[in-house]
């Protein structure tokens, strides 16, 4: 469970989040809002990349201020642009990176690499240079690099924004098939039909928090 208690976040010149309190228990949670509404900073707070100025964030009882390392393992993060997330030149090297950081054994690394590449139908691409993958394959590799670290939660910051329609479909199917809890930051309202909960941010505050069939129309109305 993710608990957010009275969290505010400000940088030198602006306040990004104002007194947000949430308790996240559902398996599929979406966070939507206009550009600059604070949703990206919110996402980065959930795995401790950003620490709140005031208030606390707890993941399964662990505070992000004090348990940074454990939380990075528990909470995976998928960025908008896979090109910035894939940090090694070859597919299998990149998959191994996170696992090496967690101290997995060689055998375990090999086995998990095999598993995940099979799952996403990319076994032939094991020794492929990452920059020659298609956009959709890159995003699946970025997701894979997170999954092999065995997280319980996965935060995704607009993972389909840069993809064409076909790849968007492939990646969103992959997202819906995940067994982990997913917290998806998105502009893409089509993705949210099957979600359990949708939270709408505006100017750093939560302004809607409901099931998709209620929250999405309210958001659309707010934006027009």
């Amino acid at each position, binding site marked *: 469970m993710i608990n957010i208690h009275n969290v505010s976040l400000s940088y030198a010149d602006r306040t990004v989040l104002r007194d947000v309190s949430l308790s996240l228990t559902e398996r599929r949670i979406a966070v939507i809002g206009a550009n600059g509404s604070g949703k990206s900073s919110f996402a980065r707070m959930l795995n401790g*990349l950003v620490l709140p100025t005031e208030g606390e964030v707890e993941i399964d009882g662990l505070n992000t201020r004090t348990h940074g*390392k454990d939380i*990075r393992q528990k909470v995976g993060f998928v960025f908008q642009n896979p090109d910035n*997330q894939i*940090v090694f030149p070859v597919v299998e090297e990149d998959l191994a990176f996170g696992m090496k*950081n967690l101290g997995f054994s060689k055998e375990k690394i090999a086995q998990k690499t095999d598993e995940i590449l099979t799952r996403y139908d990319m076994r032939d691409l094991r020794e492929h*240079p990452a920059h020659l993958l298609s956009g959709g394959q890159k995003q699946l590799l970025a997701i894979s690099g*997170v999954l092999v670290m065995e997280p319980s939660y996965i935060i995704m910051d607009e993972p389909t924004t840069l993809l064409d329609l076909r790849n968007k479909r492939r990646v969103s199917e992959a997202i819906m098939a995940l067994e982990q809890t997913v917290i998806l930051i998105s502009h893409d309202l089509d993705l949210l039909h099957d979600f359990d909960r949708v939270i709408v941010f505006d100017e750093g505050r939560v302004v809607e928090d409901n099931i998709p069939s209620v929250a999405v129309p309210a958001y659309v109305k707010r934006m027009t």
Partner: protein
Amino acid sequence: MLDLYSPGKSFLHKMSPAPKMLVLMVAATLLFLNDSLAVTLAAMVAVLLLYPLAQLSFKQAWQQLRPLLWIFAVFFALQWWLAGLEQASYVVLRLAALILLASLVTLTTRSSDMIDTITTGLGFLKPIGVNPAKVGLAISLALRFIPVLAQVTQDVREAQKTRGLERSVIAVAMPVAIRTLKMADDISDAIESRGYRP
């Protein structure tokens, strides 16, 4: 990958990179210390003979020298004018032998093997604060992002072409540099998100 490696099974291919580099350095130093034309000529012939032994063609040897031909010509002419024909042949031959020798190492060694050698070889610098694992990460990151930034540069040039600005170095380099700096933040976040502790 984008290296200059030429696949093969010769003894030079099988030799591990560290001794190969060491031999290269010693040979290059000796070549520079020696000032006899005859010895230099012998060295040149010896290096050339190593090419077939390393399953490389003379054509490949020629390819190493071709881009430098006009420089050799200028040197030769200058030396001839300043110091005579013998000195001119000596200087140009020495340079050519050095280039061919160094290329021999490059052509028979995979970049990835070289990187492993460097990262292990740097172990002795640990006491002065060099961390081989970080050097390894920096090398991998650079290899990963060279094609990404090359693509970005290409995209920017094409975009500026439609505005008639593809000849303006600033109009090309500025957006590329801005993208690079923006990427830097995301990449460090991504690395730390994946459990990396510096």
